[in-house]
């Protein structure tokens, strides 16, 4: 195929891209728009100040002290003081609060008399993040409250203040989160979901643009323009899209790491290389699907299914190691999984690229894979049949 021919093919596909506003929407507006959506929604990093309540049936110095201390806990916001357990449960069911701290009557009296009363706290776990945050806030408070009493007793028994402090907590396990000591939720969700959306849109656009040739019956002409070479035809079709997605992908990297200061402990170079291969890997995956199943509806269905499942299966929030074996394997057939692992290794943990070598290889395999099945696509392109 001569260069001029390839140029004509390119011009043809650029014209097709410009003819439909849907392409512009899917290739640029959706990936960039969704990135801004995540950045704006998750901007805080952690949804602190969980609405919670306290039920204080004791009303003693001790219980008022606990209540006061509760309101200083960072993760929760005591937005209500309620007078009974039932009332609190009702507020939970109505969704006004995500948990409450329950102080029984006679707490102070029993505690000082050595009757070990029980304070309890209720967290609504139907919403995972606020439920967990409420639980953590309550637990800290409950432990501190009883600790304060123990300490007081120890000092009263004649042990020095500093020894009493140690006795309260002889062993401290200091937990250091590597790469993300702030436990910022957005550092996981934003990059993984943004790249997941990018993958999904690349899948759909790739398949849609190729199958439209067959739907509108122009695929024989398309092949004729590349002298019957399906590789040339596909390249002419996809290269303009590749370039647009590259620009979008690299822009997203700059947006996250430069403007929004996401952790970038590794090299820009490798993250950019990863993005460039990732875009082609996604196209390769879609091309493989459409070559094996050259039916627009089926191919789009398969890619929507996998593209959406990727958000769960590729394990951004739930580890593959904990899934059933068969399901876990499924997560390895999606490009986004490898891109996510590269992000963790390179950007978050700043490891040497050596440790991510297999992920890069995996992405390259996706790029190469469709070539085994392109012949099938050629056969269907020569005799286009559209199945609605």
């Amino acid at each position, binding site marked *: 195929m001569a260069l001029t021919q390839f140029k004509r093919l390119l011009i043809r596909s650029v014209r097709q891209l410009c003819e439909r506003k849907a392409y512009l929407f899917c290739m640029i507006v959706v990936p960039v728009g969704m990135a801004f959506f995540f950045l704006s929604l998750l901007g805080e990093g952690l*949804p602190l100040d969980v609405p919670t309540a306290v039920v204080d049936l004791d009303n003693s110095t001790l219980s008022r002290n606990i209540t006061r201390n509760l309101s200083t806990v960072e993760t929760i916001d005591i937005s209500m003081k309620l007078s009974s357990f039932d009332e609190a449960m009702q507020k939970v069911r109505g969704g006004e609060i995500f948990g409450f701290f329950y102080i029984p009557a006679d707490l102070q009296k029993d505690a000082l008399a050595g009757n070990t009363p029980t304070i309890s706290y209720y967290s609504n776990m139907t919403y995972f993040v606020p439920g967990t945050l409420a639980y953590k806030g309550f637990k800290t408070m409950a432990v501190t409250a009883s600790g304060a009493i123990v300490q007081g007793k120890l000092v009263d028994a004649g042990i020095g203040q500093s020894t009493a402090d140690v006795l309260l907590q002889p062993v401290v396990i200091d937990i250091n989160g590597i790469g993300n000591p702030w436990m910022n939720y957005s550092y996981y969700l934003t990059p993984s979901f943004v790249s997941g959306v990018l993958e999904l849109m690349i899948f759909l656009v790739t398949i849609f643009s190729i199958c439209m040739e067959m739907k509108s019956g122009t695929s024989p002409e398309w092949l004729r323009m590349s002298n019957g070479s399906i590789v040339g035809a596909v390249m002419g079709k996809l290269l303009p899209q590749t370039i647009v997605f590259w620009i979008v992908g690299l822009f997203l990297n700059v947006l996250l790491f430069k403007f929004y200061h996401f952790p970038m402990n590794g090299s820009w170079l490798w993250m950019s290389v990863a993005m460039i291969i990732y875009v082609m890997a996604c196209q390769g995956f879609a091309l493989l699907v459409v070559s094996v199943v050259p039916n627009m509806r089926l191919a789009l269905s398969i890619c929507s299914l996998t593209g959406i499942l990727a958000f769960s299966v590729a394990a951004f929030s*739930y580890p593959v190691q904990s899934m059933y074996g068969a399901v876990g394997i499924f997560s390895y057939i999606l490009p986004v999984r490898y891109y996510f692992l590269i992000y963790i290794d390179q950007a978050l943990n700043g490891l040497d690229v050596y440790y991510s070598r297999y992920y890069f290889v995996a992405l390259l395999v996706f790029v190469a894979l469709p070539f085994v099945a392109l012949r099938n696509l050629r056969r269907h392109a020569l005799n286009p049949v559209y199945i609605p």
Partner: protein
Amino acid sequence: MNSLTRNIGNWFSYAAKVWRREFYLVTHDAGALIFFVLLPLFYPVVYTVIYNPEVVRDLPVAVVDNSRTAESRELVRMLDATPAIKLGGYAADMEEARTRMAEKDVFGVVEIPEDYARKIGRGEQVVVNFYSDMSLLLRYRSFVSALTDVQLATGAQIRQELMNQTGLSLAASSGSPINNEAYFLGDTEQGFASFIIPGIVVLILQQSMLLGITLLGGTASERRRKNRGVDPMAIPGAPASATVIGKAMCYTVIYLPLAIYILHFIPEWFNLPHEGSAVDYLLFIFPMLLASSFLGLTLCRFVKEREMAFLLIVFTSVLLLFLSGLTWPRYAMSDLWHWVGDCIPVVWGVEGFIRINSNGASLAENATAFYWLWGLSAVYFVLAWIYFRSLKRKARGVGNLNQ
């Protein structure tokens, strides 16, 4: 008076005809059937299977034991005994441990200081460092709760020993003067599936419906283009309002059995939280299905081609997953996103269903969401009606030209 009753009768007969025709179109379109039937049947099962192991356990952790004493081995033994942590072998130094972490052999490292046993013996506070891999927050969370338990347990044990040594016997020394108990509401096992599936299934209801409706809408749009603005499969003469209502009834009725399957049987089969009464959540879900139908018909305006449904609808599932507050609570959203979420049926649907299903709330306790859903039904009905009226006008325009 007579003509009024006749008009009303006509209107109903048109709506019924549209309903029947739409049902025919749905059942004779493989694509629509996949969205309307297959997707709601299989997707919930797929999701439940993914998350069903529920909790994260036995995470391998490397130990750098600089103390090498009976005390430090005791600490390691206690860590290993927690459900979350599994001993992944010893490492000679932090360097080696870090390499093993980079190789993904282990997800955490415990570094026990050289003076661990000595400090405990002297009654000084000792700090043990734990380094957690942060590639997944869920893993980190499991570590934190396991380590907190171990810290409290070793603390109590050491305190007891020191007390005995010093000959002090205090009533309060053995335990704490106040007990505390944590209760988990809704998702009592704190499992991941139990938390996420009840929300996801409602999302599947709306999204599969929108996909199906816009697919049919795109197909109708292609038919109109081929026939100069007239859809040969439409009921001629049907008023726009009867068309919208007839179609919406068709979709809603198809979805009622699916809703029972998704909202009742899925939680039952997979042992997910399932507290609420069936009457409450089915009554609750009806306006959501209705509002989703009207929303779908409104969206048909943007779908000019059958397969465009995929391009325009699929990605919104991700958007709606977040707007629904499932992963990021709604109270923490800015006014803008809160407001956008308010306008989408499934956001209220997820919220209400989770409360009824998992927390055992009643329909009355979810009155706000229920009224919003009816309100959204009304709004989207009007928007869909405006669109279908404009289609009808265009078709009439073409008809006039032909004469």
